């Protein structure tokens, strides 16, 4: 085994390989998931140490992201608990749908809590009376009021997972895949809640709630770089005002190192309405935007 020959060979086929080694997560990712998972025991010590180092480097970032995700899941789970307890939900299909969604949110809480604990970090926690929980809706809130909050929570959840997925690239235990699986389920919930509200299942310009901050960008208050909630403290990236998250009405997609973004409404050969083009893509939110008082942060008790 000649490690330097290996590096040379990688450099031959992948000119960026030496740059990749500047980022442990990046080289880790580029070597493929399977290499991490099944073959570590068989690798020579040096290679093994390189991988171990990559694990160590990402663990803290990963648990910060997971605690952030867990905060949102606790918020959602407690919201649905209150929704069900309100006895406002009509029996039959609506009650069954909300019960199913609540069951998933509870499962996400369980999964994220145990994963964070496994990684040796204290998970955020919440009950109906302590820690991370939903701020009750005002007395007199209706079924429609609750459903509107559910839509905003679910759509925000989809944007929130997207916003931090990149930080889980190369993280151990396939955390990125797990986060993406949850993200996909949140999108299914969002579609269902929207259908129950008589809205189209995708975020679009005819939405009755389109001016809610959940679909816009920016923060109301400058936030710090850490949150202390529910018995845990975790870091979040500071709000970057120079790179605002895309609005949900964004139609510019597909920018790469090789080419500028394309206007998906006008430049794809077949003209579409800007509404169609924007609805086809869900945009991300920065963490600081999600926890801002104008969005999920304002729904915490």
């Amino acid at each position, binding site marked *: 085994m000649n490690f330097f020959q290996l590096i040379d060979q*990688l450099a031959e086929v992948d000119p960026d390989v030496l740059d990749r080694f500047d980022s442990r997560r990046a080289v880790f990712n580029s070597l493929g*998931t399977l290499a991490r998972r099944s073959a570590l025991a068989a*690798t020579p010590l040096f290679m093994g140490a390189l991988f171990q180092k990559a694990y160590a480097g990402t663990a803290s970032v990963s648990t910060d992201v997971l605690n952030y995700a867990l905060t949102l899941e606790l918020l959602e789970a407690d919201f649905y608990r209150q929704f069900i307890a309100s006895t406002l939900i009509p029996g039959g299909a609506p009650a069954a749908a909300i019960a199913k969604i609540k069951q*998933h949110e509870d499962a996400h809480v369980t999964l994220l809590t145990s994963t964070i604990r496994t990684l040796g970090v204290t998970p955020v926690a919440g009950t109906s009376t302590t820690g991370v929980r939903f701020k009750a809706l005002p007395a007199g809130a209706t079924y429609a009021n609750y459903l509107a909050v559910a839509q905003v929570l679910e759509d925000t959840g989809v944007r929130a997972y997207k916003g931090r997925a990149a930080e889980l690239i190369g993280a151990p235990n396939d955390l990125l895949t797990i986060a993406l699986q949850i993200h*996909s*389920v949140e999108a*299914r919930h969002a579609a269902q809640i929207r259908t129950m509200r008589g809205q*189209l299942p995708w975020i679009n310009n005819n939405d009755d709630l389109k001016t809610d901050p959940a679909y816009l960008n920016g923060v109301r208050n400058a936030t710090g770089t850490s949150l202390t909630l529910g018995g845990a403290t975790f870091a979040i990236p500071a709000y970057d005002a120079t790179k605002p998250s895309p609005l949900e009405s964004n139609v510019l997609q597909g920018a790469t190192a090789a080419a500028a973004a394309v206007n998906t409404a006008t430049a794809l050969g077949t003209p579409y309405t800007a509404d169609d083009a924007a*609805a086809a893509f869900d945009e991300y939110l920065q963490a600081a935007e999600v926890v801002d008082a104008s969005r999920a942060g304002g729904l915490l008790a």
Partner: protein
Amino acid sequence: MSDHSFLSAWREQSLGRRLFLRVSAASAASVTLVAAGCSTSTPEPTAVDPYQLTLPAGDPGLLYYAYFLALTQAALYQKVTDTPPADLTAAERVIFADLRDHEVIYRETIKYVIDPTGATVLLPTDFAINLTSFTLTTRAGVLAAAQLLEDLTAAAYPTILPLFTSANIPQRTLLLKISSVQARHAATVRDLLTPGSFASSDVVENTGALAGQLRTKTPTEVMTAFAPYFAPYVITVANLAVPV
């Protein structure tokens, strides 16, 4: 027929990366890596089958994979919107018009990312999506076809997104933005066909340690299911990085 600019276009540009990824993602990954450290290897010749389209290795292959998913769905929804079944309601036709628009936008946006200048012909001239295995004359048949493709596509994305290399983060971000809307599509058509089934246990784990997570599918599983729609062509995903 034998003039596949689809094949030659990517074969030239990605040979090096294909070699690298075949080395790094082979099933006995680290053993192969060790072997690669000791000696150089050369690419094997590609078998020539006029109906076989082999997706390139690495990130371009992932984009082509997503392209074929969008291509198939766009063809289905174009057919449904052109000749909707009589019993498809007006509200459902609005949904299908949106599904068609979204999938065509995906198809064209992904194509743009693969080939920004539009210089490359991505498909053989006689390639066409084959929808004959579906019953598209009834509402139930249309919804069943849509559910099948949407569930498969929604299950495909979480598997491939982590496979992108750090050199192609914008490409991954694009597909990430698409992935949740595909999940919305899947939930929507499921609920139209079987009310309340938007996240049933056949698509979302219901119990156990993985409860609440989407059931994902590998490129091989997805492309096996999609095979009838590409016939007589066969799309091979053997060069894609191996998901766990």
